[in-house]
Each structure stands twice: as structure tokens, then as C-alpha cells.
């Protein structure tokens, strides 16, 4: 008697969830499918998930007749350096704001939060002016240095460090460790979950960064994937819609972020249990 309504509700919930999941993943599937379609089929039958004729022509064009490999290389360099820089600087800054006593700490903290409240677009022109003034316009330095630390990352690390019991750090201190050693050998290893979060966010953020590269570079040799693919999408290759080509580029662009995510996401959930009893 009671079983049927429960079963029905369950089915209804699952159906709803499946529908939502499909809506969510459908654009991605269309993207992958279209990248294997021929040009006419992509135009006539854009939403079909299975191409009638499979072709890798789009990928061939991408590697043979475009600067895709160069864009990929540029994106890779920028992303790796920015990710390493953010992990290093954000955790140092977060630790300082969480634990060190210094004059003006509250002000710095407020400024960090204030930066998060400013929309990035607003800062594009000031950024350009500063980069230009510093003489690093149209160089890797100009692309990388302004991204090396970000307010959100500092904020994440600060909050995590505050959750680490102070007694663990005090124990390290009384065992003879100085401030940097305590940070490096005790606090940072305990912050692995936050660091993993930061790696994913930084990697994904700098890999997908577009606005900053538009204002900091103009030379084609410094074009990143985002910029390159955006140019493709805005029709720089002329003739036709070029859907398969654009979507092949987009699909390839997704791969590194997906890899990084799958490698690091399992470690995000690790907790610092066992540090203290109570």
C-alpha cells in the first residue's frame, strides 16, 4: 500500500534529475559531435548527436592550417606559471592574513575583499594603462605577472588556514620551528585540500582567461587558445560558418582542464582529521 507512492516519487525525482542533467550536458555533447561532422551536415543538422558521416577534417585543418599548436603552447606556458604563482603567493598572503600579527592587517583584509567586489571588466583599461606604463605590454611578463595572485584565492587560503588549530602551529613553534618553517612544513601540508582547490581554480581560471590577454597583447605570436578560438568564432577564417572547426578547437581546449580536474578533485575532499582530539 505504502510502497507505490514512494516508488512513484522516486521515479519522478529521477526523471527530473535526468532531464536536468541532459539539459546541462547537451551543449557539450553537441560540441563534440559537431566537431566530427562535415561542414554541410553541421549547418543542416546542427543538433544531431551522431554525425551521419564521421570526419576528422576539422581537426586536421586545425593542426595543419591554423596557429592552434602555437596558441596551445602559449596558453600552456601562461597557465602553468600562473597556477604555480597563485598557489605560492595566495597561500603566503592567506597565511599572513590568517595568522601573523601586523599593523594594517584589517585594512589589507578589507582591500582583498573589496577587490573581489569589483567587476573585472571595469579594470580592463586601468590594467592596460599600468601594463603599458611598466613596459611589459605585448610580452609574457605582461600576460603573467598581473595574474600571479588573486583576491579570491587569498580569501580561500586565509579561511582554510584559520580552520587549522592554532595549537598545532604552537607545537611546531615550541619544537623550534620559525614562522616560515611552521608554514612550510606543517601548515601547508595540512592545507592540501585547499591547495588542490586553488590548483583547479587557478588552472581553469587562467586557461579560460580572455579579457586580460586581449588588453595585454596584440602580437599573433602571443595569442592564447581563448583568444585564438574567439577569433575563429568571430569568423576570421571566412568562408562559411566553420562550425566543425570552431567546435573542434573548443573541444580540444576543454581537455587539459578536464584532466587537471580529475587528477586533483579526489584530493579536495581530504580533511585534516587527526590533528587534534576534541
Amino acid at each position, binding site marked *: 500500500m505504502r510502497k507505490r507512492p514512494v516508488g512513484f516519487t522516486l521515479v519522478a525525482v529521477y526523471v527530473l534529475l535526468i532531464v536536468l542533467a541532459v539539459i546541462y550536458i547537451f551543449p557539450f555533447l553537441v560540441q563534440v559531435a559537431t566537431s566530427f561532422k562535415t561542414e554541410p551536415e553541421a549547418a543542416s543538422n546542427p543538433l544531431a548527436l551522431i554525425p551521419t558521416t564521421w570526419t576528422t577534417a576539422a581537426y586536421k585543418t586545425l593542426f595543419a592550417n591554423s596557429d592552434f599548436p602555437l596558441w596551445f603552447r602559449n596558453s600552456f606556458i601562461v597557465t602553468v606559471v600562473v597556477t604555480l604563482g597563485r598557489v605560492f603567493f595566495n597561500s603566503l598572503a592567506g597565511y599572513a592574513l590568517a595568522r601573523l600579527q601586523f599593523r594594517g592587517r584589517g585594512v589589507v583584509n578589507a582591500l582583498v575583499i573589496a577587490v573581489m567586489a569589483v567587476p573585472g571588466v571595469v579594470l580592463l583599461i586601468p590594467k592596460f594603462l599600468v601594463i603599458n606604463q611598466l613596459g611589459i605590454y605585448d610580452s609574457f611578463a605582461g600576460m603573467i605577472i598581473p595574474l600571479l595572485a588573486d583576491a579570491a584565492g587569498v580569501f580561500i587560503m586565509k579561511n582554510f588556514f584559520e580552520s587549522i588549530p592554532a595549537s598545532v602551529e*604552537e*607545537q611546531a613553534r*615550541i*619544537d623550534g620551528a620559525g614562522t616560515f618553517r611552521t608554514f612550510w612544513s606543517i601548515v601547508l601540508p*595540512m592545507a592540501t585540500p585547499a591547495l588542490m582547490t586553488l590548483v583547479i581554480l587557478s588552472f581553469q581560471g587562467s586557461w579560460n582567461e580572455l579579457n586580460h590577454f586581449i588588453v595585454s597583447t596584440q602580437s599573433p605570436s602571443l595569442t592564447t587558445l581563448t583568444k585564438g578560438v574567439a577569433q575563429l568564432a568571430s569568423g576570421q577564417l571566412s568562408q562559411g560558418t566553420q562550425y566543425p572547426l570552431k567546435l573542434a578547437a573548443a573541444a580540444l581546449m576543454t581537455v587539459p582542464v578536464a584532466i587537471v580536474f580529475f587528477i586533483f578533485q579526489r584530493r579536495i575532499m581530504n580533511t585534516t582529521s*587527526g590533528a*587534534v*582530539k576534541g
Partner: protein
Amino acid sequence: MTDLAAAEKLLDNTTASGTLRLRGLTKEFGNGADKVVAVDAIDLDIEPGEFVTLLGPSGCGKTTTLRMIAGFEDPSGGQVTLDDVNMIDTPPNKRPMAMVFQSYALFPHLKVRDNVAYGLKIRRTPSAKLREEVDLALESMNLSALANRAPNQLSGGQQQRVALARAMVMKPRVLLFDEPLSNLDAKLRERMRIEIRTLQRHLGITSVYVTHDQAEAMSMSDRIVVMNGGRVEQAASPDIIYRQPASVFVADFIGRANFLDVEKETSTQQGRARVKVLGHSVDVPAHPDAPAAEDVVLLLRPESIRLKAVDTRAGGGLGGHEGRVLFSVFYGDHVEYEVETEHGTITAVVADPNVDAIHREGDDVEVSFNAERAWLLPRTRQPG
């Protein structure tokens, strides 16, 4: 159980136990109207090898005092000296001290062995010596079998032992304890008390132990420092603290106490006074300030009170030295009574009771006490 031989070998006369002196040590938090004096000009001398407990209710300043000794808090005033060297400007990592935390504070990402070795590595101990000393420390705490475990694979008691091993391996001149047993269950806590005390006495390391648990303080300390409101109420051996408390606060905080309003008759001699209590004039030991004090109370510990049945058929009722039992609770090894008397309700504890002779609720009893166990003290102690 601890392995004293291994512990002794580890320390091997290399540790010179320190003399710790606190002079006018003060800590204030906040400014202006919000200012709170957590520790108010404490003076304390701790001799080499002495085990001193700071005891008091929460907020009394005991932990702040300990943290100033360790260097985790900067004093607002006063000095901490170790063997006549002022430590105030020495950061915690340069002080020859070790600390055992309430939370154990083990490094969760390091194995037991690496937790113990951490401080020695910072000191750049040569690897052969490091291994030997870590082994001895683990052995002394009976942890050798757990050396390669992670902290979260250990029980609370085992984690506590790791914390102790880690403190000992540093061969500190002063060992600090911040309520180290309060997260253990009652049985383990009792065992660890004995172990810590045995180890400390055997090795003779100067120790400062913070607790709010009076049983812990009574059972472990050479000297107990009872603190209240940032000040030292009394610093003395456990038996003095219990028998001759310096103030009503101390008497009330340590053990159970009956305070009887009594009238002072005369001061017979130094340290004694004659008072009228329960219908008798009795000569009792007195606090030095009691004879001069306007208002005095008589401290009677429940176990020094004796009750005797009154034959109600002979009439009588509530006479001067008689009382009526309000409650009686049988605990097996003792009986606890609440008795109404002319001085108010008092608590009496009778150990090893004869089951047939337990007084029932409503019984009239004759109340007497061991006068030598009583203690007359001023109601409010003059500050300073």
C-alpha cells in the same frame, strides 16, 4: 605503562632542570573601557624538579600564565626568568621548553615517528643520534609498535603518549602541560595521572601543569597555585591547600566544604581561636588573619563531621547541637547526609558506613566534628 629505564637513558643527565621565576607577570587584553586584566602581577618561584599546578575556574588566568611562560603571549608587564635569564624577548622556538597541549596537537600528515623527530630535525641532530633518541622516546612511552602509524589511527590515550614522547625527546628544562588529560575518559585519565607523575618525579623535570580539575591537581602536584580573577589566591602543598585554605574561595574550590557562621570568642594563642559553634565553645585552628577579622566563618569538611543517633523517645527535639537529617544517600563506600542545624544545612560524609546504622530522612541526630580538622578563616580576605 611507561618505560622509566628508557626515559632515563634518553635524558641521561643531559637535562639540567630549570628554575623558573615569574615576577609581576601581567597580561591585559583590550584597551580603555574594554580592558580586561587576565593575569594580575603574579609572582611565583618554581624550583628545579618541582611539579607545580595552576588550578582555578575557567577565566582565572591560568592558561594565559602558561602561555606567557611558553612565549605564546607577550606579557603586558613583568618578567619570566629561567635560571636567571630573562625570557621575555625570546620567541617560543628559542625557549628550552616543551609543551603538551590539551588537543595533543599532533601533526596529522606525519607518522608517529616523524612527529617525535620533528623538533630534533630542526635542531639538526645528526641522523644516527636522532634515530637513537626517537627510539628511546618511543620506547619510554611504550609506542615502539606504533611508530609508523598516522596520528588519526591512534586512540586518544595513544595520541597523548605521542605528545608526551615528543615533549620528552626535546629534553626540555621546563615541561608545560595545558590540561593534557581533559579529553581522556575517566579511567585512562587516572592512569595517565600516575604515569605522568611517576615519570616527572623520576626524571626531575621542572613542570608547570594547568588544570581546572582539582583531583588532578591534588594527586599530581608538589605545589598547587590556586588562581582566581588573575591573581594567586594561594600557593601551597596539596595538604595545606586542603586543610588550611587561605580564603573562602580556595576552601570552596578544593574539595567540598561547609561554611558555618560562628561567633568568635577569644583568640587563645597564635594560630588558634575559640568560637561558639553547635552549642559548644570550641578551640579551633585559625588562619593568621582570622583573629583580627571582623567577620569569620568556620570551614568544616564533610568527612570531619560525625553524626550520632538521638533517642527520640526521650523527647528532646532540635537542641543546640542537634540536627535533623534532610537527605541521606547511600553510595556503597560512603553515605552522604544533608543535615539541618542551627547553622543552616550542612553536608556530612560518613565513609565505610555500617548499613544498619544509616540515618534516615527525618531522623534527629547529634552533630559533632573533629575540632582539629576545622579551620577558621576571614569571610573576605583582605586584598594584598
